[in-house]
Every structure is written in C-alpha cells, then in structure tokens.
C-alpha cells in the first residue's frame, strides 16, 4: 500500500495529503463567502464526506491492503448503532422536547 502510485505517477500519500488540504481550503473559503445557510451546509457535508473517506481509505489503509475487507466491515459495524442514534436522538422532531418529562427538556437546570 505504502508504495502505491496514483495513475501510475503520483505518490498516493502525497496525492491524498494535497487533496485534503485543497478540500479544507474550499471548506473554509465557502464559509467566508457568505452563502445561504442551506448552501453552506450542503458544501460542508459535500466536502466532509470525501475527506472522511480519503483519510480512512488511504491513511488508515482500508483500501488496498490484504486485510482491508474485514477491517472495513469492522469499521462499518457501528454504523447501525450510529444511524439509530442520529435518527432517534439527533434528528427527533424539534417539538419532541415539549412532550418529554420536564427533567429531560432543554432548559431544565434545577439540578
């Protein structure tokens, strides 16, 4: 893996490193350019996903190594629980807090 070349020419680690730097620069610039909130969120998600994959696949060797398949499955195993957490905690309906007992509503500080 460590001596793989991209397109037969470029060192994979260098290419990945430069790609990450460029994507981060775009990310920061996008926020500085004052797009609407929706477009900004779209850009940030659109950049975070490939950055995440680039680090996991190339720097963490999930792509191209002999154990890649089983280790990738291991890495994906918590995805099920992550989806549950995000869907049922992170993205519950905004009004849901009104229906919760008082002690677990936002703003309850009588600890």
């Amino acid at each position, binding site marked *: 893996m460590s001596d793989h070349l991209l397109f037969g020419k470029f060192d994979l*680690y260098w290419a990945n490193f430069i790609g990450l730097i460029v994507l981060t620069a775009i990310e920061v610039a996008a926020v500085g350019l004052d797009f609407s909130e929706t477009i900004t969120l779209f850009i940030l998600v659109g*950049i*975070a996903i490939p950055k995440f994959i680039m*680090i996991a696949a190339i720097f*963490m060797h999930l792509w191209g190594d002999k*154990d890649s398949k089983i280790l990738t499955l291991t890495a994906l195993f918590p995805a099920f629980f992550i989806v549950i957490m995000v869907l049922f905690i*992170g993205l519950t309906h905004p009004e849901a807090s009104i229906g919760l007992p008082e002690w677990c509503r*936002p703003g309850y*500080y009588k600890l």
Partner: protein
Amino acid sequence: MSDGYHDNEHEHHASAWGPHDWSHGAPHNSWSPIIMSIGIGIFLYTVASVYSWGEMVDSSSIALVLIGMMITFFGLLIWWRQDASFDGVYEPKATGTPFQNIEIRKVAMWVFLMSEMMVFTSLFSTYMRYRFGIDSCQEVYESGSWIVNSQNVDTGEAVNCFLPASELIASSWFHIAPGAINTFALIVSSFTIVQALRWAKKPVGSVDEEVRRKRVYRYLGSTWVLAIIFLTLKMVEWFIGFYIPAIGPFHEHDIMSLVEEGYTIHADHYHPHHGWDDVHLAELAALHPEDYQAYLAAVGPNYEPTNAVMLADIRVSSSTFFVTTGTHGAHVFIGIIGLTYMTWKAWTGGYTPQNAVSIEYFGLYWHFVDLIWVLVFPFFYLY
C-alpha cells in the same frame, strides 16, 4: 496426546496469571478482564456516592475509590504482562473467525476505534438534537418575542435559545484562524505519521540505517510539534485570544477568546458585546418588509425601541461545543503522550521494519483523531 501440540501443552502448564507463551499455540485464559471489571465497578459505584452534581457530598468513600483504581491498575498490569511483546518484534495473530491470521493488536485497535466512534456519535447526536430542537438565538432575536416577554438585560430574565459557537468563530477570518490552522495542522500530522511509517518499514539494506533513524524521528517529531500547536491554538481560541497589530489594511484590535466573549458553560445571562438590541432590530426589520410584519406582530405597531438588549441562556449550546471539542482535545493530548515516547524511541534508533507496526497502530489512532476533527470542524466551527 502423542502429537507435538499436546505434548507442548502438557509441558507448558499454562497459567491464567502468567505471560502467554506464543510458541505453544493460542493464548490461554486470563483473569485480567474480570479483575479490571471489578475494579472499574468499585470505582464508578463509589465515585457516584462521593460526588453529586460536581460537589463532594461524602468523603468517606474516597478510600474505596482509590481501592477501585488500584484493582483496575492491577488488572492492567496482568494484561500488560500477558500480552505485551517484550522483544518488541513478535506480532501475535488472531486465531478465531472472522479475524483469522490478522494481527491481534491491529484488530484490537480497530475495535477500540469503533467504540470511540460510538462515543463521538453520542456527542454529535446530542449536538444535533439540541441544535435542531431549540430555537436559534438569532431567530428568537429577529422574532421580537423577547421584547414582549421582557427577556432583556434590564429585567435579568433570559430566553433559552441555541447559539452555535460558529456564530462567534466564523464571524471573521481572524476568529476562524485558530480552528482553520488546527485543521491544516492535523492533516499535515496525518501525513507526517504515514511518512514515518513508510521510512520505518523500508526493508533492511534498501536504506542507510542512520537515514532511516533520522527520517523516522523527524517525521514523528513533526507530528508531535503539530499536535502541540493544535492544543496551543485550542487554548488561544478558548481562553487567551490574540492581538492584531495595525498592519496594512488591518486596524489594531484584540481577538477575544470564547470565554472572554462570555461563551461559557455557565452562560445563563449571555448577551453579545454588540447587537441584540431593539433599536438595531427595528432597523433590521424595516430593511426586510416581510420580517418587519413579523416584528410588528410580536411587539405591536406602537412599540418604540428603548435600547433594550436581549438576554439569553446559552448553556446547552456552549456545553455541547465544549464537551465535544474538549473530548477531541483530550484525545489529542493522549496522542501527544504516545508521540513523546515514540519520538524518543525513534531518536534512539528503536524502529526497524520488524517493529514498525507500532507506528502503524498508533497512526490508526492518530488518523482517527484527524477523522473526528474532519466532522467537528465544519459542524461546530463553520456551520
């Protein structure tokens, strides 16, 4: 019992306390997990009785807290004695499905990282829940409802709303600079550590050993420096702030830290240094007719701005920010401890192709820290 394996097993007398003898087949049983579980159980149970909501309520159990910690440490010592590769070279392989013939430490590191992913997912879920579940302070301010409810500095009544840290951090290029530099620092450090691994792994004879030593310790040392820069800038951003001199187009001014701005976990009476007053709101509403109608509907057509300033309780938003970024920072700190040892070891020429996997396994942890930052930075600092 005539085959070699069982003969060896017979002579080996495997003990659940002693080190594994890897030349005699699969690792034997161990008491270590049970001992550590008991120790952690005693520790957590007694800590819960000593502290209640951050205050010490019963000091009589402190001795039991320490006993719990000692038992846990004892279990760790047994584990270390059993599984550590004391010659620094031997790499035991997993024997069970589905990880057969994969290095045990590599599998363990991945499983550990996935448990870490769950920790950060819970933090992200909490953040999303509150971010989307509580009205943003800007929306509350522009609705004018705080005027009707008299939630202002003069009355001392605060409105509960969500103020993402990005409102302060992404307010100018200078404010965003520490976080942005940290992002680049972590990416560069991910690159330097794979380069250290690459040089450590080069086959003996393909590279001069002195060149290998220098390259490995310089790359690891660079990673260490970048990690220190990360935490230093984190302190600047949280607590210290920085000074901008009058150079070129910039006028002389101070960039305040988050704490100096009042963005703390205790901020139940927060108001920004500029803004959130009803005079500004009236001007803003007049510029946007559609917002103006909503504003009038809330405050009434005869309301005259009095220079009242909205007061906000932002403890939920600041807590989610500091807990998440602080947990990430703690991981960076742990990485620095590991990097300190590894850099020293590399400086003494301790890394060879045979034991370079240590850098690989630490690298997995370090890349994971970078990976989490890839998510923390846009969603806590920029959005």
